[in-house]
């Protein structure tokens, strides 16, 4: 009896949420884990993992802004630019639309450590001004989007520049892989928090990975293409 | 009878997050092939109306008609309308997208799928028409404001629109550049019979330029008529937050017996001539 009631409640809530979601299409920042979603232990764990990277980022920024205080303005503007970029709706190749993260481009332009600080502020602003994401989950979201994404993007960029020397190729993969890394890390975070009863972490990773692959893989390709085009413009400017 | 090319009927619109409506039951008619001035203070809803007429914003309520037909509610229909109605934004920085006048002016044509050969010719012609032949390949950021405004106008006129919406076209221009832009508009109007709607808060300009005036206050149309009618309502003008054209104030200061039988002058320069001839 109890089960049926629960299933009923779930169905009603799901239908209502779906209705609201479809009628007022808030642009989906699909990869932001929402407030309260992670079990408390995991929420704290990801904060702890994230903070050292963040402190390193702050330290690198302190060093440069001490020499040239005007750079703070540049950083603030770069952050605002990243926020606005991530608010643009990007058509993805499957016809749906989603938001670019901009972290790949940012990592190539400013370096991965400064980007980890800017990316975190962008996430905080998205949480406060757009209600996407949250505070308890900020550690997890920042680790996937502001640490793992830029690091992966930057590493790929440096590696491709060194081996092939083809800049556009490197930019494409930096942007696309920054996206993909974010997506994979988020899926792993969810799988760790909610391991499958029968298959454990691995099975759960497949499931979460599969669900988000629908939006995230086309988005990564779109973002790669977009970033190459933006890069071309910036070169011409 | 005057034919109206554009009509709105009780159109209301509130921006998301806005506290009060930008357009509030706005009903108005735009006569075909005339020069209409849209008057109102900053923030009275003039720019919002332009975005509605272009189908870029959708009314929350109310209906709009173009050539007597209701506005389409599909993308293709709206795109067709946007090819017939051109909007010149107040700030050219807002509208110029590509790097040089030549590239930028071709943007709309390319979106409309015009063949490259024809694009080349039409762009050259449009740039020549606004007197920027020598600067066709100069980066836009190196142009002066007056030049940028003319590029923006060329980018719209190259589409051969039947209706031209002008949002404060003379704002920020010095007198020389303003004169030049107005002459260019007069040429377009006379040569091609384009319907023009100019949003402005420069009453001197409106009085001199327009065939028809529409006054907007807080998103509603409070008066429409020929300039002489509108500007005769001295008390109402100040309620609407509008000044009166200087030339009319001066004209009224001249004793009745002297101006008896004369038409009020349109511009200060006309008044100058009048003074020179009739007081001598």
């Amino acid at each position: 009896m109890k089960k049926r009631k629960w299933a009923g409640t779930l169905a009603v809530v799901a239908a209502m949420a779906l209705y609201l979601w479809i009628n007022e299409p808030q642009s989906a920042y699909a990869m932001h884990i929402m407030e309260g979603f992670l079990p408390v232990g995991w929420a704290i764990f990801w904060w702890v993992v994230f903070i050292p990277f963040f402190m390193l980022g702050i330290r690198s920024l302190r060093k440069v802004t001490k020499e040239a205080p005007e750079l703070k303005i540049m950083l603030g503007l770069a952050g605002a630019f990243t926020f606005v970029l991530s608010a643009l709706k990007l058509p993805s190749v499957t016809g749906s639309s989603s938001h670019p993260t901009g972290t790949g481009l940012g990592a190539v332009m400013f370096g991965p450590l400064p980007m980890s600080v800017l990316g975190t502020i962008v996430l905080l602003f998205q949480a406060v001004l757009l209600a996407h994401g949250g505070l308890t989950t900020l550690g997890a979201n920042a680790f996937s989007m502001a640490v793992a994404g830029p690091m992966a993007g930057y590493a790929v960029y440096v590696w491709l520049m060194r081996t092939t020397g083809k800049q556009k190729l490197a930019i494409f993969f930096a942007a696309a892989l920054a996206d993909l890394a974010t997506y994979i890390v988020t899926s792993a975070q969810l799988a760790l928090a909610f391991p499958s009863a029968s298959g454990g972490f691995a099975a759960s990773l497949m499931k979460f990975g599969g669900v988000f692959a629908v939006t995230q893989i086309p988005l990564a390709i779109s973002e790669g293409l977009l970033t190459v085009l933006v890069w071309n413009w910036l070169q011409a400017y | 009878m005057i034919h109206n090319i554009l009509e709105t009927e009780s159109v209301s619109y509130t921006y998301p997050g806005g506290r009060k409506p930008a357009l509030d039951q706005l009903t108005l008619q735009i006569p075909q092939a005339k020069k209409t001035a849209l008057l109102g203070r900053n923030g009275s809803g003039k720019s919002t109306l332009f975005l509605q007429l272009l189908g870029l914003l959708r009314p929350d309520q109310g209906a709009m008609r173009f050539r007597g037909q209701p506005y389409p509610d599909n993308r293709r229909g709206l795109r067709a309308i946007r090819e017939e109605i051109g909007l010149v934004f107040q700030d050219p920085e807002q509208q110029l997208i590509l790097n040089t006048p030549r590239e930028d002016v071709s943007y709309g044509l390319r979106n409309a799928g015009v063949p490259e050969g024809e694009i080349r010719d039409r762009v050259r012609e449009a740039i020549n028409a606004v007197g920027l032949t020598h600067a066709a390949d100069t980066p836009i950021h190196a142009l002066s404001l007056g030049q940028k405004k003319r590029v923006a106008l060329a980018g719209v006129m190259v589409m051969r629109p039947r209706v031209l919406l002008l949002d404060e076209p003379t704002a920020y221009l010095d007198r020389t550049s303003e004169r030049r832009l107005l002459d260019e508009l007069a040429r377009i109007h006379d040569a091609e019979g384009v319907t023009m709607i100019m949003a402005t808060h420069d009453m001197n300009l409106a009085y001199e330029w327009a065939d028809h005036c529409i006054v907007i206050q807080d998103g509603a149309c409070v008066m429409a008529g020929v300039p002489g009618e509108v500007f005769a309502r001295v008390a109402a003008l100040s309620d609407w937050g509008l000044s009166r054209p200087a030339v009319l104030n001066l004209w009224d200061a001249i004793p009745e017996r002297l101006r008896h039988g004369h038409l009020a002058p349109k511009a200060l320069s006309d008044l100058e001539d009048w003074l020179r001839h009739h007081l001598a």
Partner: protein
Amino acid sequence: MILKQIDSYSYGNRLRSLPATAKGGFAASLLLLAYLTGPAVQAAIIAWLYVWTVPRAGISAKFYAVSLGSVLGFYLLSLPALMIEAIPEGAKMAVAANVRLELGGWQLAVTEDSMHLAVRLLFRVLACSSCFLFLILTTPMADLFQVLRKLRVPMLLLEIMQIMYRFLFALLQTASELYTAQRARGGHHGVRSRIADTATLAARLFGRTMSRYDNWTRGLRARGFEDELRLAPSEPGNVPAKLRIEALIGLAIITLTALLLPGGWLS
């Protein structure tokens, strides 16, 4: 746009004048309780915060529902992954399943445990999000900066955030104007043109951002900027006695319930 709505509520609501630290402390306490309790208490928190946010602060009920609904988007997207177990045919089911479906060589199953999890998660997510929404809908960003400063967030970070916030709206405006202009001129049709137009827009926006950099640096210097952006101190404010008493009593009741209720921490 949701951003403008949230921003305009944050400084235009009826609870705006309460000190941000008080609102922050209240929301944080409830968030903690919401995290650590079960569905019954969470439901009470959801209802109580609805009262604070909608009738009391004056946020429109529809907007509040839409915000919570959009929060649920992520939940809904994860629901299949949370609830459905996929097991190769022939393998033994580790737990009892309520619903079972055979598909190709796999069995798809929804277990009782996963349904419990989904329901518990739903309540927790709604309760926690209510806390967060209460804070962001009643407190402007400027006040939140003051709270962050009290929490000893590094000054450098606050300075960068201040500059970001100051420019956000100007850049968003520019972006939306450019987007409008592109559409007015026939842009953004079809996937290819939309990606190309978005790239142009981003690049233009970058150019504008950089020209603002020069101008704004001058503006700052003209007003005495040397090396640090000195922020204004917070304005003192008071919580009316009635609200303070209600908040404290409510928090006490929820804490006691959490401790004493059957299934609570002490039982």
